[in-house]
């Protein structure tokens, strides 16, 4: 069965540090990949998505992600985090069964 894995459950960084959150998916066919952010008490917001083309995808709020097919990875990056980036981050994939499946999420805490 298709799955999305996020191995970092909780990441703590200082402001201005660089961020990389790991995401791996298990599916050999065409993949559509997403990163969503959920601020405390809020709903899911789409950060970026990849369907085809340039494997380096730029999203909102300075986030980007790189699709590496050979590694089945879609890691999220940001060169310099801010306190306001404190949130839960979910990697997701659009499965062949026509629904979005989510990873377990990574909680990002930023020290001011």
């Amino acid at each position, binding site marked *: 069965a298709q799955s999305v894995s996020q191995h970092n459950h909780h990441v703590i960084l200082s402001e201005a540090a660089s961020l990389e959150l790991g995401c791996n998916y298990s599916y050999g066919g065409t993949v*559509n990949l*997403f990163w*969503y952010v959920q601020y405390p008490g*809020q*709903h*899911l*917001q*789409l950060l970026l*998505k990849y*369907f085809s083309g340039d494997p380096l995808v730029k999203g909102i709020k300075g986030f980007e992600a790189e699709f590496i097919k050979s590694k089945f990875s879609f890691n999220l990056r940001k060169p310099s985090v801010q306190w306001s980036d404190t949130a839960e981050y*979910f990697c997701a994939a*659009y499965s062949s*069964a*026509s*629904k*979005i*499946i*989510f*990873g*377990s*999420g990574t909680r990002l805490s930023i020290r001011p």
Partner: protein
Amino acid sequence: AAGVIQSPRHLIKEKRETATLKCYPIPRHDTVYWYQQGPGQDPQFLISFYEKMQSDKGSIPDRFSAQQFSDYHSELNMSSLELGDSALYFCASSLTGGATDTYFGPGTRLTVL
């Protein structure tokens, strides 16, 4: 632009009561998905509808049922509520089941006491 609308935004129920959550998709979207997100958990797919027919089913308890109406809005009916049903319930909509334009609603936070 219009987004996915969910009502109510917050709901408090007692054990064994029933609850109905509503989802109004983005205009012209014909596919609706329901997700359940427990405290500290990732969203779990419950059920989806395309053109008023159930298109996929996930980990939805038998106590829950859902349908999509002719105007494409959807309702999630939950009966014999249990404490463990307390969660954030998201609805999402898309056009013809396409991932390219799947949008999530703000969610309904259900608390079962």
